[in-house]
């Protein structure tokens, strides 16, 4: 089948600074794509453009053959693209359940302002969906904990869970393991990836840790200086000399990107 996501000649400049240029990628459904590159290589910019947080200066983005270039993020979300964040974006004052439940309710509300005023937030199916997702991400034991007291790993899972609860078809994970200790990283990714597989979600994930990329990605995009310098299977990409030379240095300091704002 045709690509679920297609990106052509994408470019983003801030004044004189070129954050991303000449990015052309197309992703078939249910593929898991790892995105690597040093800080400032344009990974997050790339994600932000797809999710509508940034408006591209040039080029176009197509999702399921529909152009979404420069649409506001909330519309793009409604179309079925969802994302998680480098720094987990959750609602600290709510419990884990309420976090997910709100997300579920929003995804399920019948359209428009009137819809969101008339549909209760704890509708049976929203609640059910929330419970299911919490199970799926194995954070059931934190169900009623206020989010502001959660350990880092759980925050990450919750963040992704909130992105997944709306049954997106494309999910972008911005450094899902940033700020997570090396020991936990693999368990976390195992949980996440198996969850996404069961929901048949196409995934783009930004990652600094090459082992994780090698382990979980079907395909790897290597960013350097705002554009894609290598694109292929993990092995091909990671072993390509340019990548070795320009990027894999990152491997030596895996947590470099943690918390930092690419």
């Amino acid at each position, binding site marked *: 089948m045709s690509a679920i996501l297609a990106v052509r000649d994408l470019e983003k400049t801030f004044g004189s600074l070129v954050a991303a240029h000449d990015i052309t990628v197309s992703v078939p459904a249910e593929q898991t794509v790892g995105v690597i590159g040093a800080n400032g290589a344009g990974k997050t910019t790339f994600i932000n453009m797809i999710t509508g947080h940034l408006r591209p200066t040039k080029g176009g983005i197509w999702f399921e053959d529909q152009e979404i270039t420069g649409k506001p993020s909330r519309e793009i979300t409604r179309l079925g693209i969802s994302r998680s964040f480098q720094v987990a*974006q959750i609602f*600290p004052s709510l419990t884990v359940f309420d976090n997910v439940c709100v997300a579920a309710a929003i995804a399920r*509300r019948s359209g428009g302002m009137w819809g969101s*005023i008339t549909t*209760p*937030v704890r509708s049976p199916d929203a609640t059910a969906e929330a419970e299911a997702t919490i199970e799926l991400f194995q954070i059931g034991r934190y169900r009623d904990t206020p989010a502001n007291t959660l350990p880092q790993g759980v925050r990450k899972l919750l963040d992704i869970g909130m992105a997944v609860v709306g049954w997106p078809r494309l999910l972008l994970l911005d450094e899902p393991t940033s700020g997570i200790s090396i020991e936990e990283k693999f368990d976390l990714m195992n949980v996440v990836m198996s969850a996404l597989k069961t929901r048949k979600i196409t995934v783009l994930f930004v990652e600094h840790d090459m082992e994780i990329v090698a382990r979980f990605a079907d395909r790897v995009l290597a960013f350097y200086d705002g554009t894609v310098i290598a694109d292929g299977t993990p092995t091909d990409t990671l072993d390509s000399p340019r990548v070795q030379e320009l990027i894999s240095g990152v491997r030596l300091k895996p947590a470099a990107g943690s918390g930092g704002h690419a």
Partner: protein
Amino acid sequence: MFLFAAAAAPLLPEWIVSLTTIAFANALVVLGLVVLWRVGLVSFGQALYYCIGAYVVALLARWTGLTDAFALIVIGGVAAGLVAVLIGFLLARYREIFFAMLSLALSMILYGVLVKTESLGSSDGFSVTTPTFLGYAPHREALGLSLYWLTLGVDAIAAVLVGAYFRSVAGALAAPIRDNEIRVEFLGVSVNSIIHAKVVIAGILGGLGGALAAMAIGHVDPNMAYWTTSGSFVFVTILAGAGSVAAAFVGSLVFEAVRSFAVDVMPGLWQMTLGSVLLLTILFLPDGLGSLVSRLKRRGEVQRP
């Protein structure tokens, strides 16, 4: 609560009935502020809608001779609501203190306009024709009670609807928006339109409150739009807390009672009394009287087998 209060009315002395009527009319404005406060917004200009509601009632009675309380209230609420819709387009983009300041400026402009309008009695305002109730034209006690019951009725409806709203998606988004607007946007919701809706709801409630107050007081004047009026509404909101719908009504009643008590017992020093009450509330009851409500709730649940 409303049934209870309604039943109690005939037993109470008239002056308490009228005091309570005004308190419960103002409670609607407070309820609107509670809706806003849940998203962390405070309007120092809510008196704008209060005043619009009041003047609409007074002017309709004066110009068209329409005196039916039910019609007047509805129109008052709608009028304020429409203004809120317009202002909302502007206001919804603002947050924090800037939201407060802009709403304050708008209400002060209305104040200026009214003071300038000599045909409407300028700062003296003018009196409101005694309302009728579907043709029934009561006087004295009867009138007081009718207004009181009408107010309670409107309050009850408002309380139920707002309660339902709080449980709806748009209502429940208040805390999330306060916490993290970006996340909300990425979940597929326009934060501004949610806030716009809240501004409108608050506006309608303000208008209803003003309409009822106008009839209960029997007089309208530009001070209804002055910033100190808004100030006292915010005051009650803090006193009540955003915890529960009921708190708005209790808070408003307690406020009126305390003020009247202070004026009665220490005529020269009632501002000091009010100030101290507010201060103590903030310091020792950070979530307002509402937090007492929820505490009672919790205790109630514990006691239940």
